[in-house]
């Protein structure tokens, strides 16, 4: 398994209600920053989901900032995946 670090900044989503804005930036290790009105009730869920997505892409270092405007799970997942893919685009064949 290759170990991939996020080396450029990329984002996906928006700050419209029911959406989320995910921004991925370089960092030395995995850092997850989840903010929004649902922080208290969905923080653990979101962190676990984000770590799982990063693992799918073999990402071992990078900061993921999620501004949650009330997105449902499938939206969060799609935005996180897209942001990670955009950050990794340069590496893809």
């Amino acid at each position, binding site marked *: 398994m290759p170990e991939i670090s996020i080396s450029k900044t990329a984002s996906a989503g928006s700050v419209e*209600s029911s959406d989320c804005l995910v921004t991925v930036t370089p960092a030395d290790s995995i850092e997850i920053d989840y903010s929004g009105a*649902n922080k208290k*009730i969905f923080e*653990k869920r979101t962190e676990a989901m984000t770590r799982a997505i990063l693992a799918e892409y073999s990402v071992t270092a990078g900061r993921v900032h999620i501004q949650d405007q*009330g*997105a449902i*799970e499938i939206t969060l997942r799609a935005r996180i995946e897209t942001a990670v893919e955009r950050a990794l685009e340069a590496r893809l064949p």
Partner: protein
Amino acid sequence: MTDFVINSIGRRVPLNVPGVGSFEPYAGAFQKAGPSRAAGAPVHPRSPQRTKSKVAESLEQAIKRSGLEDGMTISFHHHLRNGDAVIPMVLEALQAMGFRGLTFAPSSIPDAHDCVADYIMRGLIGRLYTSGVRGKLGTLVSSGEAGIPVVIRSHGGRARAIEEGQIAIDVAFLAAPACDAMGNVSGSSGPSACGSLGYAMTDAMFAKHVIAITDNLVDYPVGRNISIPQHKVDQIVAVPSLGNPKKIATGAARITRNPVDLKIAKDTFRLMKASGAIAPGFSFQMGVGGASLAVSAYLEEYMKGKGIVGSFGLGGISGHMSRMLEQGLFKSLFDVQSFDSAVTDSVRNNPNHVEIDSSWYANPFNAGCLAHSLDCVILAALDVDVNFNVNVLTGNDGALRGASGGHCDAAAGAALSIVVLPSFRGGVCSIKDSVSNVTTPGETVDAIVTERGILINPLRKDLIERAISAKLPIVDINELKDKVERLTGKPEPPDVDEGDVVAVVEYRDGTLIDSVCRVKK
């Protein structure tokens, strides 16, 4: 240490609230009998004398003459909505005059009044009795920092508590959109006209001392629409303005174009039709939330088409309801609170648009409140649980952010009570295993309508049968919760300290239906 008990719907409530007194636990919506004797209205003692004016020189002078002392109870109404400047004006004067530890007992607190939180911290307010707690005040109370007893009551419950003497108002400060020099007050004219003064009427009847505050001192007498008669008013204070007219006179709410709300409204209307409720003599109450208002549009079209004339519309009255009155679709409107300024003209000019006080509206223990004559009510909610309990007070984090209003009163009174809400909101499923706070017990809720199906209380077998015959989309509440949680995820329960009660929630009969616990940081 206060003793706690578990009430009949499984909620933990204290038997005693320090600084307030003892309470009984909730035992069922119609279990508690009324008191054998009510407190009765205090007399307004004064020697018989001829007088042509009760206008005081200033607010300060009126307060001094009222006999108000530290620790006494003051009341206000919330009919001026978010335009109200009277609550801040009076609290500022009381603070400047050095009062301490007053019981602040308004009918509700407009969203804009963050100043109430400041006056709690400064010691002016030592107890809080209200319908709603929102914004900065909600954060202050929920964090436990307010450090004062808080009792939340419904509109009907407040009227009952006033009549029983649990809220003994010493001085009522009543914003008066029109007032003459003897204190006849009208809510439906003047630059700050707001329509009905229903909640203020109850306060005026039972307060020991009443001060009307007006920006519209008119020639005697005030006119035909007298909300509060002169014999209940002790003093009058004339001020330049009662508040921001733009925020007092909100326009009529428009019918929503949100497809989710429209789907909910359409299915709600179909359920009402299937239940057989919509017949000649039909009586109805609804809110002004997106889906509720849209229901009335379907209802209007149907009643017109079928030539059905209803008996009465009740409650907070919207512009849409007054239009239905004008069209002859209801014989009368009973208006305890006008939701928007589109109603003001109807209150003033339509003799069938009747201003009612809050006891007449919903007090469970008088000889017959209007809520108990309702055929159908449409109510909104913050969230609900699988036992059909409804929360309108606390958010997903457990913090106070809403108002009890007439929710539990109308739900208990109406033959058909329907709660409308989207299946999820802000990424969170609206159906919980257990709501963070019960305002309205599930035994008084007949159905919940979401855009993903109609949930009918298993207690209402008759309604289930009718809905099945009408081929309505009925869904099991547990199944829908699971289905929606697969979309949204399952939220963690609010992180609260069960041992630290920051507010108690009275059911309309005065028993405690729930307590609000401190939200941990």
